[in-house]
């Protein structure tokens, strides 16, 4: 069973690296959105620094959302999902492997890119570890929650907007905690409470959302 899990992660990795544009698009989007703000708001560093926690988190959230629509689409169209549903392995396990692979190659790259962009916005260096921690805990939650919406909308012709409407409200707690932790660290306040909350959200998402996603996929395949 764990064999299937690792095989699926390896297969997804292979697929993504043979189609690198899909990998790069959310990252480039993330970088461009962040780069737009100094241009729009003006280069006043004090203002940018105050805004930066919110900016980074909203941009990260939108970048993840952008990558979600395609998460199950090609598997749906080429019949792979039918094979998953009919397999003797639990669908939730396959889903977890798929989302983990998706996060490893899109979410993790985003986490690694974020400190650079944060420094560009004038976020002080002592906040960078907190930024990394919140993104490391928060982006898996975004991917896992997004997978539920992606599974439900995969059968629709234009599911993209519906997906955003379904999923963005669910992202609010992650957004509040993530940017809240950064704000607190900017002001020199303790952040452990925020991080613990985010960790518990991540634990909840890992354990519960694969079942919801699996149910969504079974519905989409059964249409």
């Amino acid at each position, binding site marked *: 069973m764990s*064999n*299937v899990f690792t*095989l*699926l992660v390896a*297969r997804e990795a*292979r*697929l993504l690296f*043979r*189609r690198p544009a899909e990998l790069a698009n959310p990252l480039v989007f993330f970088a461009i959105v962040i780069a737009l703000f100094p241009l729009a708001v003006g280069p006043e560093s004090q203002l940018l620094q105050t805004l930066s926690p919110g900016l980074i988190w909203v941009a990260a959230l939108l970048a993840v959302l952008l990558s979600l629509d395609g998460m199950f689409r*090609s598997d749906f*169209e*080429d*019949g*792979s999902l*039918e*094979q*998953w*549903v*009919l*397999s*003797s*392995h639990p669908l939730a396990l396959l889903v977890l492997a798929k989302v983990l692979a998706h996060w490893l190659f899109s979410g993790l790259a985003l986490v690694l890119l974020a400190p650079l962009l944060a420094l560009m916005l004038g976020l002080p260096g002592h906040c960078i570890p907190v930024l990394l921690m919140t993104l490391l805990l928060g982006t898996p939650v975004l991917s896992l929650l997004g997978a539920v919406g992606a599974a439900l909308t995969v059968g629709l012709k234009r599911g993209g907007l519906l997906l955003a409407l379904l999923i963005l409200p669910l992202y609010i707690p992650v957004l509040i905690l993530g940017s809240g932790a950064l704000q607190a660290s900017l002001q020199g306040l303790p952040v452990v409470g925020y991080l613990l909350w985010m960790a518990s959200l991540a634990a909840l998402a890992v354990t519960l959302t694969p079942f919801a996603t699996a149910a969504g996929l079974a519905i989409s*395949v*059964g*249409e």
Partner: protein
Amino acid sequence: MQGKNLPPRIFSPAPSPKVSLSLNSPLLEAVALACERDWRMLFERLELRLAAGEMLQISGPNGSGKTSLLRLLAGLMQPTAGDVLLNGQPLAKQRAELARNLLWIGHAAGIKGLLTAEENLIWLCALHQPASRDAIWQALEQVGLRGFEDVPCHTLSAGQQRRVALARLYLAAPPLWILDEPFTALDKAGVAQLERHLAQHCENGGMVVLTTHHTLANTPDGYRELDLGQQQP
């Protein structure tokens, strides 16, 4: 909906004296099956039985519900009314049993264009029935893809891609095969070979349900045809 008062149609086995297989307990059964799509009744009160050694060809005009029937039988879709039974038990209650017994190749066969033939099969085997690398290479050779094992599937022709999916039939395969248009894009020799292979599988006690528009030249003893075109009220 007008067909409510009609007697249920029972598709009896082929009138060949040699066959008494469907008197055995049937593996796959449909009881009073109905399927409605977009407020249109595709078929209703459909009864069928499939026991070891039998092959069922589902035919009918486009849009008559052939693929829907296959998806119902494979448990991918829920029927509007009626039940699909596996060994006498409803399908929904025995997913694991179904997964062990069923090989499904849909119209889209689950082959990734970016992966090679070998990688595709390794994954599909891991998902369903574990097979060794040697067995996979042998199966690819049997479907005439020797030398194409490590070529990305999107560079193969449509017929060759179909052959990659069909290579699963040459691996250690479960007894019940449900195949949606397996002959699509195959050349004449490929069609003849697949027909022989399907007949062989039935003669070895397997079961095949398939849709195709073409007339099968090579059929096993337990062959029947179900015309969904005659089902419509």
